[in-house]
């Protein structure tokens, strides 16, 4: 329940993740299609990794 009380705060991560992936990809490539493609991939990686971490931590603290 504590988790759901803070769910709305998670949404602030979304614009931050989009910006970070766009700027990071922008400094790796020069052409816009490559930047956007790599940015999308970074975003999926970030989201996926965070989700995995979340599931792992949830599993660790399940009985608490």
């Amino acid at each position, binding site marked *: 329940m504590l988790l759901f009380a803070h769910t709305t705060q998670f949404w602030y991560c979304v614009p931050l993740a989009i910006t*970070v992936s766009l700027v990071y990809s922008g400094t790796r490539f020069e*052409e816009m299609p490559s930047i956007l493609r790599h940015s999308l991939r970074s975003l999926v990686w970030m989201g996926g990794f965070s989700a995995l971490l979340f599931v792992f931590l949830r599993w660790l603290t399940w009985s608490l």
Partner: protein
Amino acid sequence: MSQVPYLPDSNKPESDLPPPADGLKLSLKNPGLAAFLAWLLPGLGHMYQGRWAKGVLFFVCIMGTFAYGIALGSSRVVYASMRPYDTRYYYYICQAGVGLPAMPALIQAWRVRGEKAPWWNNWMAPPVLIGQAVPADWARAQMAIGRDDGYFGDGDFLQRGNDPDKLWYHYSGPETQERPSFEIQHNEFKQNELSIWHAKYSFKYDLGTTFTMVAGLLNLLVIFDAYAGPMLGVNLAGWEAERKRREALAEREREEKKRLKAAKAPTQATA
């Protein structure tokens, strides 16, 4: 894929230019100047180099993040201060990465240090600390705004000594805030203006600080990109195109062999 030609003002030989990225050759013009412009305003260095798309992308992303941080926690999430009991200057080091947009904080810190009133409606001004001397006019104006719309109430600034132009800050508000948890967390400095901001903006003050810091740190990557070109020296897009080209060639060779074999087979049968 469009090719970016060498610009005539580049005096570097082709071999000295940065490695190609996405199959392009870049001219960074004057890299030092571009890096300085990139720091001054995110994206400006790239616009100077003629890399308009990336310049606009960086400007929108970084300034958008910085502005959103300010919108979340007010302009006071960005301030420069190196006073005892107010050690947030290391946050400002990160925020200063965005260049000019964070510079008002330095001017405000200099004003407050000289016991002068901050300019621009306190934009990016450091918080008032207990015992801090401020101009009397400014203090009266702040108290007139009131606690609901501002941060100070009647009696928060008092005269001490014989100087009629100076008032000293001392908190005279309620001992406990509306939320009991606030007192537990900020009890040790609850009379500081910074703790009033925390109480007023709650977690959004911290979020605003984080957003503005991330914007400043991201601009460091952009400055590097303006100075030295894309970080990735390896031409991944080119590799992909080359892989497809080789696959097509191999496929054509296989078909050619098959065709030759098929053409040979009836000849051998006839022989």
